[in-house]
């Protein structure tokens, strides 16, 4: 019985299937809201209000012909996108979605660090996939992913420590659970900086240089087609969900919220979904506001602005956690 529940949790809810469909849903929300902000309609014909658009894209890509370029490093070219995708999904599984993570009781001390490490690994596989295609655009795009990721990883991590200090724990579920008052209210500066760093991590405007069409064509995806491209797209979307979910867990009180009746798991999932969508909309809003920066400007923005600020934020938080927070609680 327990085994069956475990399998169900991993494969269906809140595991793989849920994450997959939630990701596609988030993609739709993202495209729709971006279109609205740009005074357009956005996807409209695939399913009601175009809600099946990401699914249609995904299925279509799966049915397309697979071409592997002659010069590509074939094995890596084949498997890197899928590994990147699975690592991302694996990382999400550690987040408490309906009050506990996909594999119950799998949360362990320091899983925050573990998830961050997984994201890094996934990004490294993304880099590998671009590099393996042996296309110059793919190579440049991949190199940009790596440069940007390595740069922004540090401030992101420092900023992720903010709620960790406030909660006094490195375990995500513990951080989420300890937010009787969401940390966004206690440390708004940390939240704002985290969103900025996240924007860079997710390669969205104004930091979307790895996807700058006018400079690098399709970036690391340039040579990909068919199913592998589908997985690359999906990886990116999962990454966005993961990033948004992290914000939710760290600053917005995780899946916890008022339970009105029935199963708490249902309400927790609902809160989680709503909060993630809210974060996705906020990031999309920021995307619409700015032009893309140049790669040197992006790096300068990181080392000169974001990194010192995140150190400052951390210091401020430590002070808060020691002196102010105990008084509040």
């Amino acid at each position, binding site marked *: 019985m327990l085994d069956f529940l475990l399998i169900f949790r991993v494969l269906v809810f809140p595991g793989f299937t849920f994450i997959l469909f939630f990701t596609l849903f988030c993609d739709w929300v993202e495209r729709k809201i971006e279109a609205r902000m740009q*005074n*357009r309609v956005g996807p409209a014909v695939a399913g009601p209000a175009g809600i099946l658009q990401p699914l249609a894209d995904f299925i279509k890509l799966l049915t397309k012909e697979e071409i592997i370029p002659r010069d590509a490093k074939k094995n890596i070219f084949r498997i890197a996108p899928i590994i990147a995708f699975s690592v991302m999904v694996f990382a999400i599984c550690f987040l408490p979605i309906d009050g506990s993570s996909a594999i119950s009781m799998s949360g362990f001390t320091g899983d925050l660090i573990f998830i961050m490490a997984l994201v890094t690994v996934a990004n490294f596989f993304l880099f590998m996939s671009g590099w393996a295609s042996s296309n110059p655009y793919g190579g440049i795009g991949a190199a940009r992913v790596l440069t940007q990721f390595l740069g922004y990883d540090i401030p992101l991590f420092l900023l992720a420590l903010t709620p960790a200090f406030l909660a006094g724990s490195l375990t995500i579920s513990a951080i989420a659970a300890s937010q009787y008052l969401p940390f966004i209210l206690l440390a708004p500066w940390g939240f704002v900086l985290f969103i900025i760093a996240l924007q860079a991590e997710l390669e969205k405007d104004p930091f979307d240089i790895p996807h700058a069409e006018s400079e690098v064509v399709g970036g690391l995806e340039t040579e990909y087609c068919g199913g592998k491209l589908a997985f690359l797209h999906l990886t990116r979307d999962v990454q966005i969900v993961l990033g948004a979910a992290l914000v939710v867990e760290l600053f917005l009180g995780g899946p916890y919220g008022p339970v009105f009746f029935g199963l708490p798991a249902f309400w927790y999932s609902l809160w989680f979904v709503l909060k993630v969508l809210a974060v996705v909309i906020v990031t999309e809003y920021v995307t619409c*506001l700015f032009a893309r920066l140049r790669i040197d400007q992006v790096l300068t923005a990181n080392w000169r602005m974001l990194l010192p600020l995140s150190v400052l934020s951390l210091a401020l938080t430590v002070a808060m956690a020691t002196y102010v927070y105990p008084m509040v609680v």
Partner: protein
Amino acid sequence: MSKKKSRVSPMIKEVFAHIFMKPATCKYPFVKAEVPEGFRGKQVFDINLCASCGLCSRDCPAKAIEMVEVEGKRRPLFHLDQCIFCYQCAESCPRNAIKSSMFFELASTDKSNLVVKPEPSHQEKSGA
């Protein structure tokens, strides 16, 4: 720069406002597109007015008008795939036999459909 500058980008407000605004998108193809008077669309050829002079064919910059025999007389046949819709033919025609219509949905998956044939009944065959 002597101009008075506002520090805050107006985009912040504009983008936010657009979330609640109606999109500027027209509903085409679910709603028919409005075409203004005088649009240069598909040709309408009135064979009853045609004098078989061939001026339209001679003046056509794209050589899209071919003179073909219809019931013993030379009549213009419009190749829509070559036509640049300038309507010089209509201007050159001494009898005003060629007029433009508002019809613009000419696309076809078969190139041989893309002609306006001169037919005695002047019911043009649709290219669509």
